[in-house]
C-alpha cells in the first residue's frame, strides 16, 4: 500500500484537532483510499461531492443484508422486527446527532434534493399563494433553486435573492431588506458547496422568526463539517444527505418541526404512509411515516446510523478542527503559486477550496491533476448563479475530509505546478 506519508504533517494549529497518529489510524478505516490512480497514490479531494465510507459502515451494511433484512413495519416475523428496530434505531441516532426534539421529526428521504422537494410540495404547494415570496440566496446549489422556481412557475410566487459580496459572504443588510408581509419562507444553504462559505444561519433565522417567517436550511455541506443543533439554530427545516457524511448514497434526512410536518400534505402516496385505505377515503399515517411511502432503502438508512456513530465516536469538533488545519495549509500553499485565484474567501469557511488557474480551463486542470492521482471536482458545481456572480464559467474545487493529509495537499500543489508548466 502507498502510505499517505504523514511525516510532513505539522503540529495541529487547532488545539482540539486530531493528531497525526489519530489520522493514520482512522485513515486505515477507509479501504478505498488505499489505491493508486495512474500509478500515483490516490489523493481523494472531492469530499464535498461525496465522501467515502469507513469499514464500520461497510460492515454494518453487510451485516444487515446478510443477517437482518426483511421489509420493515410489515411482518410479525423475526427478521421484520429486527430490520424495523435497526431502521428506527438509526432514526433515533440521527435525532440525537442533530439534537432534534423528537424522532418523529426526522424524515428519511432520498437525499438533500429530495428533502427540499418534499418541503416544496408539502409546504409550498399546500400553503403558498400567488404573490407570496420566498427568499433564497445567491450561494444556493441548484437543488435549493430549481424546486422553488417550479413553485414560482406553478403558483406565481416570487423569489427574492440575497446577494453575496466579493468574498462570497451573504450581505445581511440586503437580506433584512427583502422581507415584507408576503414573505412566506426563507430557504438558504448552511455552507456554500461551491465556495465553502459558512452562512450565519442562526442570526438569519432569528431575523426571519422575528417576522414570523419559517426557515429551511440546506445542510448538505455543513453536516460533515460542524456540530449541528437544530434546536439551538431553531430552524424549521434542516436537510442533508448521508453520502457526504461517510454514509451510503440514496438516503438523506429532512428534519422538520412537528408543528409544520403535521400540517403539511404528504409528498408521495403509497404503502406505509396510510392508516387506512378504502376507495372512498384514505387516512394518512402520522409523522414521520406520512412522508415515507413505499419500501425505503433500509440498508442505507441503517448505514447512515452507523456513519453517525462513527463520526460521533471521533467527535465532530475534532473533525472540524482537523479540516480547518487542512484548509489553512492548502490555502497558504496555493497562495504561493502565481496565477491561482481562490474563489470564495469568506472569513468563515468549511474545508472547500475553489480556484481557477490563469489561462487554463478548470477541465484541463482536473484532467491533468487526475494524472497525478489527485481527484478534484471541476465545473460549475451545480451552482451556476455563483459562477455568474464571480464572472467565471467554472472552477476547480478541492474539498477536504478529516482523513486527508498534508502530503495529499502537497500532491495537489505539485500537480498544479505541472499544469502551469504545461500551459506556460
Amino acid at each position, binding site marked *: 500500500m502507498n502510505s499517505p506519508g504523514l511525516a510532513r504533517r505539522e503540529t495541529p494549529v487547532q488545539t482540539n484537532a486530531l493528531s497525526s497518529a489519530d489520522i493514520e489510524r482512522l485513515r486505515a478505516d477507509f479501504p478505498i483510499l488505499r489505491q493508486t490512480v495512474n500509478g500515483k497514490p490516490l489523493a481523494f479531494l472531492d469530499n464535498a461531492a461525496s465522501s467515502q465510507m469507513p469499514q464500520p459502515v461497510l460492515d454494518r451494511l453487510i451485516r444487515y443484508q446478510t443477517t437482518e433484512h426483511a421489509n420493515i413495519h410489515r411482518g410479525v416475523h423475526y427478521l421484520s422486527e429486527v430490520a424495523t428496530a435497526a431502521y428506527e434505531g438509526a432514526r433515533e441516532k440521527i435525532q440525537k446527532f442533530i439534537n432534534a426534539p423528537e424522532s418523529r421529526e426526522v424524515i428519511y428521504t432520498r437525499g438533500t434534493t429530495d428533502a427540499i422537494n418534499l418541503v416544496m410540495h408539502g409546504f409550498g404547494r399546500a400553503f403558498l399563494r400567488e404573490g407570496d415570496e420566498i427568499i433564497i440566496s445567491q450561494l444556493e446549489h441548484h437543488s435549493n433553486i430549481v424546486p422553488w422556481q417550479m413553485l414560482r412557475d406553478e403558483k406565481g410566487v416570487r423569489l427574492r435573492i440575497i446577494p453575496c459580496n466579493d468574498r462570497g459572504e451573504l450581505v445581511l443588510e440586503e437580506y433584512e431588506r427583502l422581507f415584507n408581509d408576503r414573505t412566506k419562507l426563507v430557504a438558504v444553504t448552511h455552507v456554500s458547496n461551491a465556495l465553502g462559505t459558512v452562512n450565519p444561519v442562526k442570526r438569519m433565522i432569528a431575523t426571519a422568526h422575528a417576522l414570523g417567517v419559517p426557515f429551511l436550511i440546506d445542510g448538505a455541506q455543513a453536516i460533515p463539517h460542524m456540530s449541528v443543533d437544530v434546536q439551538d439554530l431553531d430552524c424549521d427545516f434542516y436537510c442533508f444527505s448521508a453520502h457526504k457524511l461517510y454514509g451510503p448514497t440514496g438516503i438523506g434526512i429532512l428534519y422538520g418541526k412537528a408543528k409544520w410536518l403535521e400540517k403539511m400534505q404528504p409528498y408521495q402516496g403509497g404503502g406505509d404512509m396510510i392508516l387506512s385505505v378504502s376507495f372512498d377515503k384514505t387516512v394518512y399515517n402520522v409523522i414521520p411515516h406520512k412522508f415515507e411511502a413505499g419500501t425505503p432503502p433500509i440498508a442505507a438508512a441503517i448505514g447512515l446510523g452507523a456513519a453517525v456513530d462513527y463520526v460521533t465516536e471521533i467527535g465532530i469538533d475534532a473533525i472540524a478542527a482537523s479540516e480547518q488545519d487542512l484548509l489553512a495549509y492548502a490555502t497558504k500553499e496555493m497562495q504561493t503559486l502565481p496565477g491561482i485565484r481562490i474563489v470564495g474567501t469568506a472569513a468563515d469557511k468549511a474545508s472547500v477550496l475553489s480556484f481557477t488557474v490563469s489561462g487554463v480551463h478548470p477541465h*484541463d486542470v482536473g*484532467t*491533468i491533476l487526475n494524472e497525478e492521482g489527485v481527484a478534484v471536482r471541476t465545473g*460549475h458545481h451545480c451552482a451556476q448563479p455563483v459562477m455568474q456572480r464571480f464572472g467565471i464559467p467554472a472552477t476547480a474545487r478541492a474539498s477536504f475530509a478529516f482523513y486527508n493529509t498534508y502530503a495529499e495537499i502537497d500532491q495537489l500543489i505539485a500537480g498544479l505546478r505541472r499544469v502551469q508548466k504545461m500551459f506556460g
Partner: protein
Amino acid sequence: MDSKQLYQEIILDHNKKPRNWGTLSDASHRAEGVNPLCGDRIWVSLRLNGRNIEGVAFEGESCAICTASASMMTTNVKGKSIEDAEALVRQFREMATGKLDAAKPNQLGRLTVFAGVKDLPSRVKCAILPWHTLHAAFHNEQIASTEGDADPMGLPPVRPASDAAV
C-alpha cells in the same frame, strides 16, 4: 492514458494560438455549441459558396481540448465541400468515441492527436463539441448541445445522399 499523450504540443499550441479565431461578418451560416455540463460554449460561423466552405471561424470560452479541436477543425475544413467536411465530422466523432474502423481509410490526418479522449469519457464531449456545432451550422440549426434533445449524438447522423449507404 497519460495526459502528456493527450496534451500534445500541437494541442497546446492550437489552444494558445487558435487559428481562424473570431466571427465572419459575411457569414452565411452560424451555430452556437454548448456543453451545459462544463460550461464550454463556442460559436462557429461559415461562409458557403454553393457546396464549398469558403470561410470558417470560431470563438468561445472553452477548455484546451475543445479550443484546439475547434481550431484544427477550421484549418481542416476550410476550402472543402460540405460533403467532405461532414465525412470528417463523422470520422472525428467515431475516433473520439472509440468506434473508428481502423481498417477503413480516413481523412483525419493530424486530427488523430485527439484519439486519446476515447479513454477519458468526461472529455469526449469537449473534443466533439466544435464538430457538432459545425454540423449544426450546415443544417441551419441555431444551437448544438451535448445534452438533451439537442444532442446530435442522440440523433441519426444527417448524411448527404451520396453516401447514405455507408
